């Protein structure tokens, strides 16, 4: 997972949501069918893809997928 595009394609595969760089900042409240379970599914997938641990407590406090990308991108890039 090297770029925002990789991230968005992972989001699509794991959660079924089709997002673009311009909609990735949408608040979770605006995403159809979004729930904490989808979030956890996504986190597990991110950890599997990156081989790194995601700071889960912080992720759970985030409000959009862009926040999550920012948090997990930190863990990807050395």
């Amino acid at each position: 997972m090297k770029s925002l595009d990789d991230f968005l394609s992972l989001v699509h595969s794991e959660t079924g949501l089709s997002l673009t760089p311009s909609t990735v900042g949408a608040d979770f409240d605006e995403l159809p069918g979004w729930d904490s379970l989808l979030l956890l599914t996504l986190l597990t997938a991110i950890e599997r893809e990156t081989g790194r641990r995601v700071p889960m407590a912080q992720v759970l406090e985030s409000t959009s997928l862009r926040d999550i990308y920012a948090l997990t991108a930190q863990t990807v890039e050395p």
Partner: protein
Amino acid sequence: MVEKTDDTLRSLHERGRVAAEYPRVRGLVRGAGVAETRWAGNLLARIGADAVLAEHPDTPVVSVAFTGHSTVSGLVAPVTAELARHGLLLRPHVSDFDGYVFDLSDTASELYSAKPDAVVCLLDASVVFDEVPVPWEPEDVRRIFDEKLTLLDGLATSFAGAGQGTLVFNTLPLPREWTAQLIGVRDRARLGAVWREANARLLRLMDRHPALTVLDFDPLLGADLPLRDDRLGVYTHTEFSPEAHAAYARDVAHLLRAATGRAKKCLVLDLDNTVWGGILGDDGIEGIEVAGSYRGEAFRRLQRTARQVASQGVLLAAVSKNDLDPVREVLRSHPDMTLREDDFVRVVANWRPKHDNLRELAAELNLGVDSFVFADDSPYECGLVVRELPDVAVVALDEEPALHVEKLLRDGWFDVRDITVDDLKRPERYREELDRKDFLHGFSSLDDYLRELDVQVRFADASPAELARVSQLTLRTNQFNLTTERLQQSEVAERAAAPGSLVLTIRSGDRFGDNGVVGAVLAHREGDELVIDNFLLSCRVFARGIEQACLSAVLGHARDQGLRSVRAGYRPSAKNGKVQDFYPGNGFRPAGGGTDGAPTLYRHDLAEIPAPPDHIRLTLSLGGLHQ
């Protein structure tokens, strides 16, 4: 291989065709690994039952309410995936966090109003430890676990009064987080003992609550399986890891499959390199491996497992590419064989394609191929059966015989809540039935045959000991089942106890032996009419006049009790087409119904009651119908 390599659930998903091509999903999910199955569960749960039903309205659906003390939503996707492997759709109803006490004790709760087929109440150690003070001792744990057992006992009682279908509890696995906090090893041992004693009592609740099933979580944890993911536990109150959810979901799905009448009935084994090591045709009787050597012991283990499974009422058959005579000789006289000819209801050894043999075997046993589980070490044979007979459950063994047993048992194909006395006698009865068929070939007409057969039928009120068997008939009988109404044992007992209601069993026997309880009739009185709720007969004894004899007896009984008519219904299913004319063919007249899934209704005015077939010796003991 049979499937093309791009033929995966992912490619279906990318083309947006999952719901449209849903009948293929079962095969695709069956072949998936652990990670793929998890992904498939998430996908299928998102798509949902309704999208599939819009395309394929006949797909069977199981509705399940999930509740518990911790967060239980993580169980939905794995159960969706496991049910998909069995061709079933899930309609989930997920309760709020820590909702189980309210859900199950309040008969007006949303859970009860959803009328689910099953309620899965997921239990974990936090049920107890959330109430244990700090600091604590094993005695505190014992006391609180005791209180919880009383609570669970009460909830099972409430469920029996208000709910329908099946309630599922599980034993509480003990995470190391708790044992390791006790630094005295003797205290730790006391905690372990207290915990297991409480779990044992939880398991025994099944003996007192017919609608309850308690699944034992411990055997699932033997494999390389983390019980918890601490981050999920701490941050989301999800007390089981995704891997533990998946393993538990598999057991739950087996239970749901059985509770909806889809337990498998017959295990069909290949022989060469499945039951014994080596190729009989090449290696000879002396050369095959069945004991003693490393590989021989692996095959012996498989044989002992097959024999154990068969001893509980599963029919065992062999279908092998071999000449019959040497196979018979191995089964009769090889000194080290565990399985013998008598363990099999049929041994088919010839050179025809296996799917043809399986089809024929199904016809001989009067079963659908969908009640077969077929195990073979050859990818070619497995692939061919998957393609030709997609309804057969195929267990693909491989060249490592030490793994045969795990593969065979992995999917709990034959799991049922209760084994009845009839189950234990089933293999013998099927063997007798095959003898009967051979006997039939010697007669010029069916009438001569039936007269020679000397059929005896006892048609009587069900005894308490027979209620489990009646429930099982409603769950397992698919062909001679006029309404396909599935009833748990507790529901049968309720009807048997209700005034003006009849639960009747049909026992039959003939010159070849006793058949036990082969059928049931459920009926109740409405004013001056008797309503037949369902009429069931095992496929072993169709078309011998037993059904006509019993129907005639019901009509006669209704007249004797002063009633004016008998009403009955037929609700078509995928499998009961052969009995659609049962009532009109026996003097009933159409009486409406038959639209929007309601049964087609028939009525008999009791003016002319057909006599029972005269080749049957009928004994009656039918109870009163006072309301």
